[in-house]
């Protein structure tokens, strides 16, 4: 409709007016391209990566590769199980350590902190979120690895060097918390004050208010923050590459070395150029990461929607 009035006008008047219209058309076309780019780039990534991993999928079945623990690309053995177990191990351990701290900090920031303290802690957490993860890896090599190797692992009767699943999880739990905190604080702060007033007004203590009213009302947001954090840990690359030890076997203890899916790509990257099947295998690892993260995003969205309906206030 807008189009037709515009063209009618442009027939009546020339000059300056048509210049404006031309600019409008051009910019509109460009914005449309940019809008579709958001979807196009995603489709392009998925299609090229699946296409490039086809040579591997033609030779082996997915079930076979995912359940086999032999990773010997030189001998055409592509068992992804150790890396999958390592990834899941690290992700779960990270979330077990990181989630309570993140939620408690979010509660502090949203419900307890006031005034200058709140701004200060808030900006500290912004800074923590902005520090590149490779720096955490470097500091951990200097501080956490010796600590785990010399004190923590021996205390549990393990003779580890300090590099391994536990170290990675500890460092990752610090890297993902700021992200989970800011999302959780956001959903806690979005709650109307009447909720707090009503609950406190009927005689609940502050903790009872938080537990029975606020965490519930903000639950969908917090839950999806945790899931998104999980997705982050799942795809973390540089910190595991620096700290996990990079050995392709199924880890038998939290202090053991291991391999995650992203570190598999990083560590075998050198051989990648020479063997076409190996190249295909590592790109397939990328596809697996993409699919899992995609599932996480989707379930975060669905769960948020469902919880919102159930925990209405």
């Amino acid at each position, binding site marked *: 409709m807008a189009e037709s009035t515009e063209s009618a006008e442009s027939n009546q008047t020339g000059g300056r007016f048509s210049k404006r219209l031309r600019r409008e058309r051009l910019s509109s076309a460009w914005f449309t391209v*940019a*809008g579709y780019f958001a979807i196009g780039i995603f489709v392009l990534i998925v299609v090229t990566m699946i296409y490039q991993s086809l040579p591997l999928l033609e030779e082996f079945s997915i079930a076979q590769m995912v359940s086999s623990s032999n990773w010997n690309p030189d001998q055409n053995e592509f068992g992804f199980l150790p890396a999958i177990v390592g990834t899941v191990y690290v992700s779960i351990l990270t979330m077990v350590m990181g989630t309570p701290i993140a939620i408690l*900090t979010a509660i502090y920031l949203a*419900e307890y902190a006031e005034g200058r303290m709140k701004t200060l802690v808030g900006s500290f957490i912004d800074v923590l979120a902005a520090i590149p993860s490779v*720096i955490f890896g470097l500091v951990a090599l200097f501080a956490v690895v010796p600590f785990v190797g010399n004190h923590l692992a021996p205390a549990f009767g393990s003779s580890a060097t300090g590099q391994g699943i536990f170290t990675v999880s500890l460092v990752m739990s610090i890297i993902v918390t700021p992200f989970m905190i800011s999302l959780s604080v956001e959903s806690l702060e979005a709650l109307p004050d009447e909720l707090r007033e009503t609950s406190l007004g009927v005689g609940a*203590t502050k903790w009872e208010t938080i537990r029975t009213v606020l965490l519930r009302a903000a639950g969908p947001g917090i839950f999806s923050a945790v899931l998104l954090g999980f997705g982050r840990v799942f795809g973390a690359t*540089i910190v595991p590459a*620096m700290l996990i030890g990079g050995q392709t076997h199924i880890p038998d203890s939290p202090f053991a070395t291991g391999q995650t899916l992203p570190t598999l790509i990083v560590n075998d990257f050198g051989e990648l150029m020479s063997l076409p099947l190996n190249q295909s295998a590592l790109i397939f690892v*990328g596809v697996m990461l993409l699919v899992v993260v995609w599932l996480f995003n989707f379930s975060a969205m669905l769960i948020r929607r469902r919880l919102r309906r159930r925990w209405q206030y």
Partner: protein
Amino acid sequence: MDRYAKQRLIGLLARGATAIVVSVMVFVVGVTIYRGARILLTDPSIVVTPPGSQYTLQAEGGFLHAIVGSVFIVIPATIVSTILAISTAIYLQSDYSSERFSDLANMFLNVLWGTPPIVYGVFVLTIIFTVGARQSLLFGIIAIAIFQYPIMTRYTDEALRSAPDTVKEASYGLGSTRFETARMTVRSALPGVIAGVIMGFARGIGDAATVLFTAGRSTNMPGGPMDGATTLPILIYENATSPNDELVAQAYAASFLLIVVVLALIAISKVLAGRFARYTPGGRHS
């Protein structure tokens, strides 16, 4: 335990958790500043010295190549990404696209936002294979631009969404075209847009996984867009595990530089947000 004791306990736990998070941040920044700044103060020349031919073995020279690589990769990538991100965000506003398309695109942007950076690295690597090229500066730029795009688009989209409708209404009411109105909307949301661009830049300059496969681990000065290059995060990653203490020291110096840059970017975004708030109708809020 009575309910008041429980309340006190939770208060303590919440404060304790916050103390842990804050002290970890202070520790990481402190170690980097202490170890990195010391290196830089005793030998500031490593920042401006190109690496020697024996760099990886004997730590000959400095890490100018990584600084130059970071600048030449992240700045062009940010420019490309900013243009694309602002355009996409404008399109997703209701004037151009339908609500439905907007929702769909936002879902894809969310997925892209959560995609591990290494996937972008591998994706651009497959492009390199397909084209038959080598890892180079140019592909590093492409990879970082793709990585930054969803981050910037989401920030920009949110900023445009929170821009007051009155701006739009007033603009259309005066007979503006959609393009002219979009310009006014972007201007009124400028603090948010700039914050988004700076966040994207900060994320781009700190990420190693995207550049690792696309620009490479070159230890030479980048000569042209098709030459191999490296960035500061990759230098830190490569040097961190080196047996040569001097290289490890350089990794700390590079970390210190990165932290300074990132902190400066955060500070700049706060200042700029305040300064550009004058374009926002209704006064200054950040």
